[in-house]
């Protein structure tokens, strides 16, 4: 005990440095973990505050989970979250790597830099702004898309109430926002490849295409695998902004836009089903945790330095 206090005193300056951050982690990351017990309770708000609300709510065991998994919601939100993320990961990877290679091959480096700056812009904009951008194209009576359709003599489409189009729209918007950012990561590692490898390949008579296939892609594959695995670890988490702002929270689209994150939010703010959406949140955290651990484990096997922990 005395040794412990001696150590604390010896490390007091460092301890003092981590203290504010540690307090933050305690309140914003660790205390909410306690709150997850509401997934097993029938939540009743209590004026006395956080502890009283949790304490006085009645235990209901697994009832919240049973309701959640019995009423089709769980299926829809899980399917949407997984499928969208899967498509984002695959298409995002293909297009980002292709764009990175393409940019690295351009002869005029200044132009390449200019394109890169343009592509990076969407990353800096908030989902609210992107939602407005989408509206300028998709608005029923004024949007550009319906005007173009009218030019071909096609009836205007009520985009914000036609669920069938939204999987494509969401995928397009997601790619639009992410490609520039991701291709920068790949471009950075392409530029780091030893130039003499290309020269050697060229002397051996390799065409440009063969150089890409046999030099660039193999050397890029560790980072590709790692980025992909890390994304797979996050596959149970959806980008709330994309699924909430871009479809403008339109109720008729929920069948194709509702993901776990938007479901939990609506449970809290609109429908008031606190217990059930905490259950959905816990379901997300637990499965998400397992996926992160698994993918990190695989990353560790491939390249120890790239693993998160």
């Amino acid at each position: 005990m005395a040794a412990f206090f001696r150590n604390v005193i010896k490390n007091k300056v460092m301890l003092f440095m981590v203290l504010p951050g540690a307090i933050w982690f305690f309140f914003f990351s660790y205390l909410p973990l306690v709150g997850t017990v509401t997934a097993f309770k029938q939540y009743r708000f209590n004026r006395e505050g956080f502890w009283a609300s949790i304490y006085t709510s009645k235990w209901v065991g697994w009832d919240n989970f049973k309701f959640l998994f019995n009423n089709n919601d769980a299926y829809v939100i899980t399917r949407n979250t997984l499928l969208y993320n899967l498509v984002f990961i695959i298409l995002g990877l293909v297009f980002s790597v292709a764009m990175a290679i393409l940019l690295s091959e351009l002869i005029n480096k200044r132009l390449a830099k200019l394109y890169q700056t343009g592509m990076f812009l969407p990353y800096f904009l908030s989902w609210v702004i992107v939602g407005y951008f989408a509206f300028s194209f998709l608005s029923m009576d004024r949007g550009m898309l319906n005007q173009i359709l009218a030019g071909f003599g096609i009836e205007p489409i009520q985009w914000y109430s036609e669920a069938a189009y939204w999987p494509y729209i969401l995928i397009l918007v997601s790619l639009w926002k992410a490609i520039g950012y991701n291709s920068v990561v790949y471009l950075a590692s392409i530029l780091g490849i030893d130039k003499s490898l290309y020269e050697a390949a060229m002397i051996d008579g390799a065409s440009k295409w063969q150089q890409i296939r046999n030099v660039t892609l193999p050397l890029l594959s560790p980072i590709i695998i790692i980025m992909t695995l890390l994304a797979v670890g996050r596959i149970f988490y959806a980008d709330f902004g994309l699924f909430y702002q871009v479809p403008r929270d339109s109720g008729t689209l929920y069948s194709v836009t509702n993901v776990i994150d938007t479901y939990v939010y609506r449970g809290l703010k609109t429908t008031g089903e606190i217990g059930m959406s905490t259950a959905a949140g816990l379901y997300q955290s637990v499965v998400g945790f397992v996926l992160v651990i698994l993918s990190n484990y695989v990353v560790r096997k491939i390249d120890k330095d790239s693993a998160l922990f």
Partner: protein
Amino acid sequence: MASEKERKKRDFHHISRGWNAVLNVIAGVFAFLCVFPFLFVVIISLTDEKTLARDGYRLLPAQWSLEAYRFIFRTSDTLLRSYGVTIAVTVIGTVISLILISLYAYAISRKSFRYRRFFSIFAILTMLFNGGMIPTYMVVSQLLGLKDTIWALILPLAMNAFYIMILRTFYSTSVPDAIVESAKIDGAGEFYTFLKIVLPLSLPGLATIGLFSTLGYWNDWFNALLYIDNPNLVPLQSMLMRIESSIQFIQQNSQNSSMSLAALQSIPQDTSRMAMVVLATLPIIFAYPFFQRYFVQGLTVGAVKE
């Protein structure tokens, strides 16, 4: 002469002119598509309101007008107030976040710190498991009582373990142990060493984290959506959302409501809304080409660990 020769050599290394043109077109078109929606919104905001009602959103409107911007600056103190909230939150938030993160990351980067392993894991665990939206909401609003205060916009974004890891890497690569040790031998205290030696040496790292968090605060609307009801505390992004949903609400109820006409006149017209979007985005549009370098740096450094 020499340059001519050099160019020939370079051409030999590179793709053919034809392919270069094709690739340029592909990259150029995509880059343009990334910028185009913003330009389009600028054009809409500069369109005459009546023309817009008649023709819809056009690339080349029949009648241009600055009325939307005049309207905003004449009538809308909402926008100015939101600007104020956003700027305050961004500045205070970034400062707090830099202080918390740089101290924490420095401590766990020092090998002499006995509890560095414990506090590293304490931070990293938060990346693995979180309580989720609702428990966090309950802690922030009920336990900490931050609902409808500016701190609800600042504190939830102040820290995250990922930034700590990035900065820790920066410290361990750009501040050699020997420097810290020699400062200690010269009689400098831990804090003095940190302030006078470590921080100046790790400026690029701090800049990266600072920019990440500035962007995070400027673009945040989610915390406002959860915690802010007071109209005086609504940040920019969130205000843009609110205008939108209030218009939808009025449009849906306009058939059977007598108050809707008055309400409709008090909310900004289509062009003014787009002008607000432009004004909220403008600072980022001007700043991001300068930030880009640091983001690329941050991205690549984040991938490399000690």
